[in-house]
């Protein structure tokens, strides 16, 4: 069995992470998987704990999520999403399953009822590989207050009203700041805008 390699926990290049995931899917590459694990395992755990999982449960769910990553890696398409996004959705679904005990209805890309996107819509979105890069640059350009508002809205299931109470900001201010911050991030995801 491969030993866990010493990989830095620091920032990793999104393109590199996507390549690792492709190697796992295509070649069942265990070294690549170990690297993915050392980068994402601790982050998935941090995410789950931020969502209210206890230490032991988070640990268990990380394992389940990473096994799912191994099993599903072949369906990862780097032209459609980044590795972080793809693994985030797996962790998210594990969380819904385990912490909320609910189903998560999702659309099916092969559904005969699916209304396809017009071709130009698909083009207007930046390639997935660049997407993560741009997003993280855009995130860094937010004020720490804006970034925290977004984290609260996104990771703590907090409605705008609850955020307003907690930050002691007027609701209208929370809304407009969140909207501004999200608009800024959205811009990073679209070309020529």
């Amino acid at each position: 069995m491969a030993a866990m390699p010493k990989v830095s926990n620091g920032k990793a290049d999104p393109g590199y992470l996507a390549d690792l995931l492709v190697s796992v899917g295509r070649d069942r590459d265990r070294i690549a998987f170990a690297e993915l694990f050392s980068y994402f395992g601790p982050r998935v755990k941090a995410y789950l704990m931020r969502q209210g999982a206890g230490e032991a449960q988070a640990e268990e769910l990380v394992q389940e999520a990473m096994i799912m990553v191994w099993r599903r890696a072949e369906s990862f398409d780097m032209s459609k999403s980044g590795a972080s996004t793809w693994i985030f959705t797996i962790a998210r679904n594990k969380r819904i399953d385990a912490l909320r005990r609910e189903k998560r209805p999702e659309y099916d890309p092969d559904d005969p009822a699916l209304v396809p996107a017009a071709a130009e819509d698909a083009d207007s979105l930046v390639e997935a590989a660049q997407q993560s890069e741009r997003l993280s640059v855009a995130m860094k350009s937010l004020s720490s207050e804006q970034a925290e508002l977004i984290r609260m809205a996104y990771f703590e299931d907090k409605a705008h009203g609850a955020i307003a109470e907690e930050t002691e900001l007027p609701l209208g201010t929370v809304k407009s700041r969140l909207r501004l911050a999200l608009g800024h991030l959205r811009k990073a995801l679209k070309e020529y805008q």
Partner: protein
Amino acid sequence: MPKHHPSEEILMAYAAGSLPEALSLVVASHLTLCPACRAEVEAYEALGGSLMDALDPASLDESAFSSIMAEIDMLDSETEESAPWGGAMPLPRKPDMEDPSLPRPLRDYLQVDLTALQWRKVMRGVEDTEIELGPDGAKTRLMRIQPGVAVPKHTHHGQEVTLVLEGGYSDADGHYERGDVQIADPSVDHQPVADVGEPCICLVVSDAPMKMTGTFGRLLNPFVTY
């Protein structure tokens, strides 16, 4: 293409995984019919990915990786003969139904085609049939309104979210057709009138009083002021 969409806050909550099951069913069905909102949700998922990336990593138990590899070894040896690697893991599918127009997420909750559903009469020209969700699910049902029928003025105890599947209706706020989503505030006097022509079939989620954890109401309240 639909003209009335779930709010950005709802789409973000769906991507974040914090939307309750009943509303997720509305969103997933809407996404089937709305490429613009699919792109929005993908962007919000990418946001989730980069937010997760930016979290301070939590330390993992040292045995975590070897437990995973042990499990993977076991999985690999089990599946070696039966399925070549990477065979997509098929979701359990309901038997094929005749009506391909029903969005798949919704079809998965029904046992039969729309035409074979057992409808319950609510009033003249209005019928419904309940959809079973998990234990904490809000009241979720399909409604069928005959052409031209006006549903009497009503208010709700909580918000009511409607997705049009067939036909259409109008009320004071506008005209709604296949794929459109309406979020009705409890304070709004709401009197939908079905279009003439064909019956209007909608997916309707109402806030279940008291039983909810509160997420549903908390989530929705701020939206309607958008």
